[in-house]
């Protein structure tokens, strides 16, 4: 019945008639715990008494939200592009102006407000291709293989759409790491694809084990057709940076098993640990010789949301496709045209990211200083986080080699696990909810990312400002000890 007493005709769109795949979609990063955090923030604003004065949201990889400053040069160029009258303003440096001018010339009608082609502004794709070539030691990159996108997520979902087909036993299976960034599981659920989970090795710094890949694949072949292998490097939520050897092994595996490789490399500048280095899948692939470089199909993804830019709101990103069947490429180009075009400010931002100030330019010094400071701060916080958490009995934290998160293993007393199950909650959700209610810290339970049965984790970002992060870590330590005592 409606409020005014009229009888409800049965709606057209109900839980029963809705696309059934949608029911399976979940996204823990913005899930129930975050909703509760927002509610608590409102309560605090209304003056409700709590054991804390603010909620610290360490759930989402949002750098600026946590106080990281944008790169001045990038924002100057974007302002100039938005309001070209500023090109006459002497307060803007010449190198910012020249880049803005160049970008605007590539836009329809000289405006960020014109549609671009669905693949993205050609000049920008060329610049991205040059950037990739520089990054990969000269290995050629064809701008035509670059697809600009609305953040990396857009391109990832598009690629998955292209890959998924078949019914029943011949339904497409897609391999994804456990733990994983839940965009993948959500997209696979939405598409009705089969998720093939392969476990990363927690005892070995979350590294990838080929034997485990093989196991997962063999198992999966019984009920689906595995077509793709997704890998996130540097890893989210785990923070591991894969070794070159590992990347070669994965490529060899994909070649042997005829799998399409999806390499999510959005954290490629976020590498902190000694002895760790980012190796792009494309680079390694081509250095392995034509036997692999001419055969293995690869899509690599990058974005302006992470690294030192942290510009999530702009939704800038791209995908590079390698060895894509030309006919399939036609389909891909058609598929991206459905959403018209990626946001042009995001495209413009990406262009400046791949064309940063050069040593002989006026903005260079400031740019380098800002970039180095941002990355150094992240490295410091990564180190501090793993040190402090590892001091807590019952919390075990792998080195945060890269990315922006820590994914420690938490030991939960059996009584706590029982109470959680009675409440119908996964134990780590139970833990995280209590942490939120008692300390005002919002993390995401490991169950949102996947973990081995019987193990529990949480994902915390290393993004809060250093002093705040210290406080957060201290509170977690307190909480964990209290929680352990309470349920022992």
């Amino acid at each position, binding site marked *: 019945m*409606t*409020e*005014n007493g*009229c009888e*409800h*005709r049965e*709606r*057209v*769109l*109900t839980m029963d008639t*809705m696309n059934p795949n*949608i*029911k399976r*979609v979940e996204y823990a990063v913005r899930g129930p715990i975050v909703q509760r955090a927002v509610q608590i923030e409102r309560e605090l604003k209304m003056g409700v008494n709590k054991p804390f004065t603010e909620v610290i949201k360490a759930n989402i990889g*949002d750098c*600026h*939200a946590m*106080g990281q400053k*944008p790169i001045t040069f990038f*924002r100057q160029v*974007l*302002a100039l592009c*938005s309001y070209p009258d500023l090109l006459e*303003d002497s307060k803007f440096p010449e190198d910012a102006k020249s880049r803005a001018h160049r970008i605007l010339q590539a836009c329809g*009608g000289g*405006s*960020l*407000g*014109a*549609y*671009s082609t669905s693949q993205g502004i050609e000049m920008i794709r060329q610049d991205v291709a040059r950037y990739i070539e520089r990054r990969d030691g000269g290995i050629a990159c064809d701008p035509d293989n670059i697809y600009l996108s*609305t953040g990396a*997520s857009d391109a990832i979902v598009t690629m998955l759409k292209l*890959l998924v*087909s*078949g019914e029943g036993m011949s339904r497409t299976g897609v391999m994804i790491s456990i733990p994983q960034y839940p*965009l993948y599981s959500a*997209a696979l659920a*939405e598409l009705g694809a089969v998720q093939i989970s392969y476990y990363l090795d927690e005892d070995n710094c979350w590294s990838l084990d080929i034997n485990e890949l093989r196991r997962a694949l063999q198992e999966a072949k019984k009920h689906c057709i595995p*077509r793709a292998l997704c890998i996130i490097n540097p890893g989210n939520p785990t923070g591991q940076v894969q070794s070159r050897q590992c990347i070669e092994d994965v490529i060899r595996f994909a070649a042997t098993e005829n799998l*399409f490789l999806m390499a999510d490399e959005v954290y490629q500048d976020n590498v902190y640990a000694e002895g760790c280095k980012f190796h792009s899948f494309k680079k390694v692939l081509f250095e392995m010789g034509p036997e692999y470089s001419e055969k293995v*199909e690869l899509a690599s993804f990058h974005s302006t949301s992470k690294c030192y*830019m942290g*510009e*999530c*709101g*702009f*939704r800038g990103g791209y995908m590079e496709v390698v060895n*894509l*069947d030309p*006919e*399939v490429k036609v389909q891909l180009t058609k598929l991206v*045209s*459905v*959403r*018209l*075009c990626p*946001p*042009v*400010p995001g495209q413009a931002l990406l262009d400046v990211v791949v064309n940063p100030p050069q040593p002989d330019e006026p903005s260079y010094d400031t740019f380098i200083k800002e970039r180095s400071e941002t990355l150094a701060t992240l490295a410091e916080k990564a180190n501090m986080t793993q040190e402090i958490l590892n001091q807590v009995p019952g919390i075990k934290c792998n080195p945060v080699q890269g990315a922006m998160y820590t994914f420690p293993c938490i030991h939960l007393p059996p009584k706590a696990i029982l109470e959680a199950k009675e409440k119908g909650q996964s134990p780590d959700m139970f833990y995280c909810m209590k942490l939120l209610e008692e300390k005002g810290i919002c993390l995401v339970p490991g169950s949102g990312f996947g973990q081995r049965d019987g193990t529990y984790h949480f994902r915390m970002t290393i993004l809060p400002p250093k002093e705040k992060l210290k406080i957060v870590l201290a509170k977690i330590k307190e909480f964990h000890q209290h929680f352990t005592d309470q349920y022992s």
Partner: protein
Amino acid sequence: MSFLREISPLVRNTFLSEKDVLLRLAAQIAAEIQQGERKDYIEVLDLSSGDLHRGGIKPITFVRQVLAACFYPALLEDDSLPLDVKERADDLLRQCDGGSVGSYTDSCGITKIKHGLSKFITRRDGGVPSSPDDIFITSGSQMALMFMLKLLVQSKVPCQTGVLIPVPTYASFNLALEDHGAVIIPYYLCEEQGWTLQVEELRRALHAGRKTCNPVALYICNPGNPTGHIQSRKSIEEVIRFAAEERLFLLADEVYQSCVYREDTKFESYKKVLSEMGSTISSTVELASFNSASKGFMGECGLRGGYVELVNLDPAVKEYTRILFSTRSSPPVGGQIALDLMADPPKPGDPSFLTFSEEVQSIKNMMCKNACRIQEVFAELPGISCQPLKAGFFVFPCLHFPPRAIKWAKKRQMEPDMLYCLQLLEETGLHVRPGCEYGQRKDSHHIRLLVATHEDIMEDALQRLKTFHMRFMKEFS
């Protein structure tokens, strides 16, 4: 040989727009001109897409000043920007985490902006209440449409979902439908009556559709693209009643709502009319209405700002809508800012009001003048006729080809209007789109051209078209 050739059939079947041919030719000609190859014209005149800025119209100053200040807050200290720009930017930045537009926002859009949109909607609809919780901001209205399709469409036979769509309709929506595995059920708009929507035709289409699929939704574009038609209140009521009787989910694409030319014509939203149709209908018919910052006088297509307002949606489904949105992180912040400024523009007394209202008025005047001029020119030309142009960005005139022209096109294995457009482009440099791309009744032919352009560009385009058309008609008479 890639296994990917066994590609998802949903993707493979997607209609490949014939505009590729025209686009390629246009690019080729532009390149030739640049290389100094002589033609009868010095440049390609592109009236093919609904892109105001590409067509030479300048962005609204206030919008771009606010955007610039939000992107680079140091400008808030700048003397050159008006006070209301700075206040607005400052206010928007306060809504962003960390005071930066680089942060993610709520997946469905910044709360304050949704509040602004709901107020805008209520004002527009003469007081009909609107809740920010029912508003979902997206990266362009096309994305919002696609989200609705994701919820509504089941692509598994035998209960494959059908969606009723008007003929003609713009090409990328067809693409979106096929991409989601929906069955397209076309209903023909009545050209002779000015592209009106006839309920009998809806009924015919629905019954035909029920034989092959499960029709679930009815899509309307009002004001129409490409037709430029604006629905009368009576027509909207008929459609709503039809949807109520036949249990259809209404998808009302209203992105051109602010482009109405004629004094005697008024846009009324589906929501408003629905709210005034008695409680049985108004509280039960499910409606999604779409709007965007890409059209209207702002024309900010590249910023990707759009929204959908959901009326009478099942609360449980709404929850899933929210989850679905959350997986796409958040809509682009530039687009959100544009929407906020669209919903709440400068008011009389504000420092920017004068410039703002002049700019908006000038665009409106321009479109009105163009609409008149087009009808004038077409009235003089044989073989081309046009329904009264009331709203939107385009005109969709009918071409009456002589039989010889049709034969010639058949020989070339092409649609006559496509061939007409290719020749038109080649001979005069004028780039418009053929009716076959939008759908039309059998043996009828049309072209679509942009009306929302500078008066002198419009005049240039009309002269080129006139010259070509006369020659073409003479050749095939």
